């Protein structure tokens, strides 16, 4: 039921996208990285430039290459959005799951960050939803930070809009995410905020101090983008 809800909503988006592209005479056959919306140095000192460059040009890039390499095994992937792939990822092999998740997760991650002071703040409607779900903004941050700190090994922390339009906090191992139609994904939903807690995301600046990374990361959250994603998820 959850699966069909997600795949349905993503199909609607896809049809609109296809119509636009057909009109423009463009077809695409592979997944691509969106350009980083700021310079590698833009998130310093919270996230150093070397980390951003390695993270974007090596870790994320290798996932996109790995996902595109699977198109030969599953030609239909070439005509799907990444969201469509993930909401039915149980049909595909581990390489699609790992690389597809990796690609989607990093796409979100770059966009939900902005240089400190430039990310705006939670909109009235999002702030009200956060208060309703968690009691306060402070409490949401505490729960989200705990989810990120408590993810043993590699993974992600998420703030999601669940299929019944509620906010929830969860975390996933490795490159899994709440869109995936896998039984082990405990909380399913549309991510509106995500934090990468793979060691590659923070090791050069913070080493073993994941807690410090999480604390400073809040300074570079792009609330304008989180607000936009929240409203989009509520409309779906």
């Amino acid at each position, binding site marked *: 039921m959850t699966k069909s809800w997600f795949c349905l909503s993503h199909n609607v988006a896809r049809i609109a996208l296809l119509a636009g592209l057909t009109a423009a005479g463009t077809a695409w056959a592979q997944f691509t990285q969106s350009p980083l919306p700021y310079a590698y140095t833009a998130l310093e000192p919270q996230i150093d430039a070397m980390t951003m460059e*390695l993270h974007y040009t*090596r*870790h994320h890039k*290798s996932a996109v290459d790995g996902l595109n390499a699977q198109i030969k095994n599953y030609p239909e992937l070439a005509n799907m959005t990444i969201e469509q792939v993930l909401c039915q990822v149980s049909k595909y092999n*581990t390489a699609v799951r*790992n690389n597809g998740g990796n690609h989607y997760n990093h796409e979100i991650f770059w966009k939900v960050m902005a240089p400190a002071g430039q990310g705006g703040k939670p909109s009235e409607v999002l702030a009200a939803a956060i208060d309703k779900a968690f009691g306060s903004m402070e409490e949401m941050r505490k729960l989200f930070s705990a989810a990120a700190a408590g993810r*043993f*090994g*590699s*993974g992600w922390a998420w703030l999601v809009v669940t299929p019944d339009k509620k906010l929830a906090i969860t975390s996933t*191992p*490795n*490159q899994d995410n709440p869109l995936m139609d896998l039984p082990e994904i405990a909380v399913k939903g549309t991510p509106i905020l995500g934090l990468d807690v*793979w*060691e*590659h995301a923070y*090791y*050069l600046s913070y*080493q*073993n101090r994941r807690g410090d990374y999480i604390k400073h990361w809040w300074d570079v959250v792009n609330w304008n983008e989180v607000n936009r994603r929240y409203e989009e998820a509520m409309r779906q």
Partner: protein
Amino acid sequence: MEHQLPPLPYAKDALAPHMSAETFEYHYGKHHQAYVTNLNNLIKGTEYENKGLEDIIKTAPAGGIFNNAAQVWNHTFFWNCMKPGGGGAPSGALAEAINKKWGSYDEFKKAFQASAVGNFGSGWTWLVKKPDGSVDIVNTSNAATPLTTADKPLITVDVWEHAYYIDYRNARPKFVETFLEHLVNWSFAEANYAG
């Protein structure tokens, strides 16, 4: 009982440039130490308080106590899997078992490298001895360890990013290749195989 961080079997700079002193400052001094500290804090007042490390690993359910105990053991084992001037090939009964399984040491190296590079996320890649005396390569995730299985660990390489990020960045293949070429302690593995 209070668990202790065991001393390193060599100086922190002994494996440089293949594994730097800076890596040991963090990997041994911070990560390994934190697992010991966390374990001691978590077992206080529990049924695990007076158990030995291996006993805790074999009996604790999935969760913090298991994770920290297994990571204490895995790291101590890993330090012993390396030595200054390591590398080369094993000899004796272990070499025979490897040849029997993979045909040659070179084929084993290829298989071990591929397994370690493909161990997605954080984890460990092991050469183990099966109960029938044959050998195999096993990947484990996060803190998981062959200690909870019938397999006997012979050699391991840590493929958590913290094991190689300072020295190799994202280049896990280069790290594993260097581990086999310059660091691996085959006499330790031979003794484990015989034991």
